[in-house]
């Protein structure tokens, strides 16, 4: 931006002849004065947004970091423990486990919707404007607009002992594997993951589809002429052109997985045992029920850093896709 401004001044000065130099100098001063005045107006316009942001986001972030170095029950005086709370994150299997669960959820929240979305979008790309695919756009979006809480309640019911899922399984002769999916130690976390996949699939599919319709059709024609099959076409043309969209899908879904709270709170409360305990829920329990504000804050800091650590590299993928 400043580079551009410099170039412009250079060009201007080249046109200026000696007698005009004074007038030019005056104009430049006036311009600078206006830019400065505009600067003040601009700062004033930013103030309201910045004020809310500082008070309700930046300050709490700083406070979270501060709390994380103390042992505090929220009532009596806090005592400094240094990195003690962070050491607990590494030692306590319950705390560490919640982070592991968050990463396991990425498999269901991110990879399944993106993989399934890619496959579906590639197949329906060819009739993207027909009536059925326009209708499907609305229907597949439904899970995105309802509260996650509602999705949790619905699926708790669907996955229960007599729920629709087990009904279908019995109908197709798989009655032996039916169970209370959310109550079983081995299946609870995948079951929570399925709920997330259901919520996020539509968004991913439609994002990827939108990306595919932007691909130049002549690329496909050329590939067909060269004798490329559907697989070849998908891996040589479709997938490379969709890097940015895949990046976006991964970013959105990974954040949803790592920061999951609503679905787990409603469907399992972290149980059975701690089988589905995720960081968001553990922060809530620690801070507001077990009165371990310091530990909760250390976990919150870890969660914020983990999200950044996973999401920032994905953004680089986006940018290289752009160029």
């Amino acid at each position: 931006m400043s580079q551009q401004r410099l170039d412009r001044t250079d060009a201007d000065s080249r046109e200026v002849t000696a007698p005009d130099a004074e007038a030019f100098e005056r104009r430049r001063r006036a311009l600078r004065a206006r830019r400065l005045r505009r600067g003040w107006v601009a700062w004033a316009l930013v103030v309201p947004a910045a004020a809310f942001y500082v008070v309700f986001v930046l300050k709490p972030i700083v406070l979270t970091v501060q709390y994380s170095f103390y042992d505090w029950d929220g009532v009596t005086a806090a005592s400094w423990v240094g990195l003690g709370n962070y050491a607990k994150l590494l030692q306590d299997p319950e705390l560490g486990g919640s982070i592991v669960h968050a990463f396991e959820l990425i498999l269901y929240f991110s990879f399944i919707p993106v993989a399934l979305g890619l496959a579906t979008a590639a197949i329906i790309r060819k009739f993207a404007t027909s009536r059925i695919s326009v209708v499907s756009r609305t229907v597949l979006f439904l899970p995105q607009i309802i509260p996650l809480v509602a999705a949790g309640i619905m699926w708790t019911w669907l996955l229960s002992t007599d729920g629709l899922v087990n009904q279908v399984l019995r109908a197709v002769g798989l009655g032996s594997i039916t169970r209370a999916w959310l109550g079983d130690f081995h299946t609870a976390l995948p079951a929570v993951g399925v709920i997330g996949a259901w919520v996020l699939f539509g968004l991913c599919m439609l994002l990827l589809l939108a990306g595919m319709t932007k691909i130049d059709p002549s690329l496909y024609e050329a590939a067909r002429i060269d004798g490329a099959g559907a697989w070849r076409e998908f891996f040589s043309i479709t997938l490379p052109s969709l890097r940015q969209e895949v990046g976006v899908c991964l970013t959105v879904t990974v954040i949803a997985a790592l920061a999951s709270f609503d679905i787990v709170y409603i469907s399992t409360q972290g149980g059975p045992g701690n089988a589905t305990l995720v960081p968001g829920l553990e922060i809530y329990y620690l801070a507001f029920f077990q009165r371990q504000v310091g530990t909760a804050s250390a976990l919150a800091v870890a969660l914020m850093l983990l999200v950044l650590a996973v999401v920032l590299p994905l953004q680089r993928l986006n940018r290289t896709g752009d160029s």
Partner: protein
Amino acid sequence: MIASRRELWLGRVLLVVLMLVTVMPFVSLFVTALHESGTYPPGLAWPEVLHWSNFATAFQSAQMGKLLVSSVLIELGVVPVALLIGTLAGFAIGHLRPPGGRWIFLAFLLGLTLPFEGVIVPLYYQIRDMGLLNTRWAIILPLIGLYMPFAVFWMRAHFVNMPDDVSEAARIDGATTWQLFWRIHLPLSMPALSSLGILMFLWTWNQFLLAVVLVDDPTKRTMAGALGAFQGQWGTDIPLLCAGSLLILLPTLVLFVVFQRQFVTALLQGSVKG
């Protein structure tokens, strides 16, 4: 584009299956809501007697009237203010480009991926010290702050992409910054503004964590928060729970069906830019 007949049919079948998977949970919820209250019906079975009265019972026991008013009040507190101040800041950073604007923008970006759980603990103590626990302000004020990174990011992107010619022409005609903003840029920003408005409306309506932590009284919460409380209270009465959930979903569903094109556009763009 040419597609073989087999591919077309495969695609159609796949779409129908996916739509079924998406819709079945809603259908199961609806059918179950029609069973006698207090019973344990199977997941998908048409009841012999239709108990429409479940909806009336759920409406009363969930205090739906109060919930709607509460959610609307929260929306009115959050969305217009967040839209206004987010747009002003976006205009300042994206169009006026003050010295140091880049740094402010980067500071806002910092909050873009923030999980709300990361700040919920200090927020609780802050809100308590302000004496706002258990009021709607406890949800309204933090949400405005938490939406700022996205709102500023979104509006800045919009103003950066506006051609400079328009504003230069207005400047030459002697327009002040305020006139430039109010008369020229704002009318041209309606698509960006409405998408942002829809997104913030949805996020607020569906906000759960802040409601659960900061407000105990379900009738002062958002819809999603109230639904959580309703589940806690009626979790054992499946038909009633299903009826209540459907009632709470209804306003969003109606709005979505009416404004579906705007919703889909907003959500798709929202995630691309976010």
